[in-house]
């Protein structure tokens, strides 16, 4: 967990210029919810400093796959995950892996903005505080400020950092949640339909933000909006009925997909 260091950031930036390496890798990932199987042997790579979009009709398993990446499925009692998911080559489902550390490295932004009912400052500062990332109040203030700046929210809230985070507008709340995720300095950020509860203007701001964040973070985003996937992602994976239908560069997926189902879904013939 030395990603805070200058060297770590440098290394990331330099690697972004070359051919993107694989940050997370799913091999034959299957998920059962009790008797029901939700995901069938999905093989999917997430490349570093790229935005990977997961698309597909409702109930196709894209959110389930996303939640496997930081083991959020652990919180569902009946969920059972098989297969292998690696982060930088380490199996995240290895019993030796600490799930708290994993979630610090793989942050998450949810569908509905869910700030803590605390002050804006506390919302952002909570993560660094529990992980002990700041040694002093000044350092913590610095993390909060830079996180809010990266999330493009700082100018809007700098005068009311101590007001409740739930008092912000929907779009601001979602950017606050992104700032909260960034504050822990994760390597990967998972976003589960981050714009579904937002109006078009707020959506545009968040999309812009995602594009900026790509420089420093690896992002996986689940979206129902084809345009959004096309706008923000470099790679797209199409899910259907629990299967990974097709995966590839976004340009290719939206212009010349291999699978007919992808073609139909993208052109709005189903889903």
């Amino acid at each position, binding site marked *: 967990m030395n990603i805070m260091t200058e060297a770590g950031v440098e290394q990331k930036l330099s690697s972004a210029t070359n051919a993107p390496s694989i940050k997370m890798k799913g091999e034959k990932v299957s998920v059962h919810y009790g008797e029901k199987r939700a995901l069938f042997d999905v093989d999917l790579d997430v490349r570093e400093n790229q935005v990977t979009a997961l698309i597909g009709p409702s109930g196709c398993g894209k959110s389930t796959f996303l939640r496997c990446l*930081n083991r*959020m499925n652990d*919180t569902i*009692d009946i969920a059972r995950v098989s297969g292998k998911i690696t982060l930088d080559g380490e199996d995240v489902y290895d019993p030796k892996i600490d799930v*708290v*550390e*994993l*979630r*610090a490295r793989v*942050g*998450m*932004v*949810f569908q*509905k903005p*869910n*700030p*803590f*009912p605390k002050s804006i400052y506390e919302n952002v500062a*909570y*993560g660094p505080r*529990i*992980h002990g990332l700041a040694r002093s109040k000044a350092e913590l203030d610095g993390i909060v400020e830079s996180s809010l700046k990266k999330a493009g929210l700082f100018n809007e809230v700098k005068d009311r950092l101590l007001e409740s985070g*739930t008092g912000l507008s929907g779009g601001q709340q979602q950017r606050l*949640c992104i700032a*909260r*995720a960034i*504050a*822990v300095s994760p390597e990967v950020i998972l976003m589960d339909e981050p714009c579904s509860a937002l109006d078009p203007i707020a959506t545009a701001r968040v999309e812009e933000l995602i594009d900026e964040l790509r420089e420093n973070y690896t992002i996986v985003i689940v979206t129902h909006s084809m345009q959004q996937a096309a706008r923000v992602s470099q790679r797209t994976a199409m899910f259907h009925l629990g299967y990974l239908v097709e995966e590839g560069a976004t340009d290719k997926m939206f212009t010349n997909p291999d699978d007919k189902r992808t073609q139909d879904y993208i052109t709005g013939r189903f889903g």
Partner: protein
Amino acid sequence: MTDAISSFGAVGRPVSIHTDDAAKARLKGRYRTETWFKWLGAAAVAVAGLFLVLLLSTIVTQAIPALRQNYLTLPIDLSAAKVDPAKLDEVNYDAIAQEALTAKFPDVTSRQDKRLLRGLISTGTGVFLRKDIAADPGMLGGTVDYAVPLDDFADLYLKGLLADVGSDEAISTSVTPSQTSGDIDLTFGDDAMLALARGHGATEGENGRLTLTSGASSLLVAFNGGTVKLTALSPAANGTVIAKGTVIEALDSTAPAASGQAFLRVIETPEASRKISDKVIVWLDTLKSAGLIESRFNSIFFFTGASREPELAGVWGAVVGSFLTMIVTLAIAFPIGVSAAIYLEEFAPKNRLTTMIEVNINNLAAVPSIVFGLLGLAVFLNFFGMPRSAPVVGGMVLALMTLPIIIIASRASLRAVPPSIREAALGIGASKVQTVFHHVLPLAMPGIMTGTILGMAHALGETAPLLMIGMVAFIVDIPGGFTDPATILPVQIFMWADFPEAGFQQKTSAAILILLVFLVIMNAIAVILRRRFERRW
């Protein structure tokens, strides 16, 4: 809807299944049902409200007399001859106070009457006097005017609760006594008294003689500085009436009282059916008209412990007992209940065992409270040998009873915290414990507090389980600690309701009122907490 014309509605559109007559009838029926239910609901609320008002007004009207106590001011002789300042504890203060009282009525000579007279002041007088002298030795050395509490019967009479007393009416004829004391004859100038006596339950004898037995109202004639109780009346020559009577207070002279100079006092309740004799009534009225009796705020009731004497009985011992018991209950039930709720809701795996535990906790909330009392008796007293009647045991028993309520309320409010908050915390790498204690618990706290306060209010009003562990004992001392014998408010109410003395009736209601005040305060706190800290997501 048989002919073609009526197949069009009033506005000219075709009649559909939503606009035809049958539909209108259905709609009307629906509105009728709605109105009906509205009225039914309103009636139910009104009836419930009526009962509540009835209950509260009964309690309040019963309780109000207990809030005041009548005191008699007596010149108490505390000169060195009576009280040796060196041996304050050996002085019979009661006797001194009684002497001061009997000195007010020099013509009361018989032993029986003297005892009756002494009984006018509370048996606790000596104790109060001793305490006050100890606090203020400056009282010693002379005669001081000191207010002593009246006995419960005297007090109740003065509050108008023992006998129906008519007002003093001037007698519009002359009254001539034969003697100034003892059994005497009274000659009334006209026969108006005869009709009056008949109207008040006198029994008719031979030759028109009327006898006023103890089953009839008491007719008291006051004149010449004394009072005579009429026992019999017979018509005499010249339209006069000769009455036999007993002098209660000696007359100054045998001079005839002119018309309007004598007064008739009727005590409607017959002497046989009241707990206070005519004599005592006359004495009290004399003391009252001399300005020696004063009604004061009843500090004895609020600030002393229990007593067999109604005028000395106070609620403070029970209040302190309740308070100590509640502290124990809260200290045990709150942490255990909340921890259990957190574990079951946030950490426990959902399997058959936890389901069974859950079902049983819900069942425990429905167990009759006396069963918890039996459990306390068997386990805490018999097995662990803990002290009887102690708040610590009472608190433990009530804690057992309150636990399921707190657990259920806490689980409900933990469940009400949206899962998005948990996900948010887990998503940035908070551990399960951090998630619960940093985010979920603070949000659930108002609900948990509300449930706890309501559970505590429930426990505060509980009587049955505490009877089993001996908190029904008659305890005079105010408990000073958790292991001192104590009783609690509802049990005190239960005991007072059981006492035969009339004076305890008002005390019972007043104690109920105090209990209700505590319950209302606790519920109000619960409501405020809920309002204040309720969060919306």
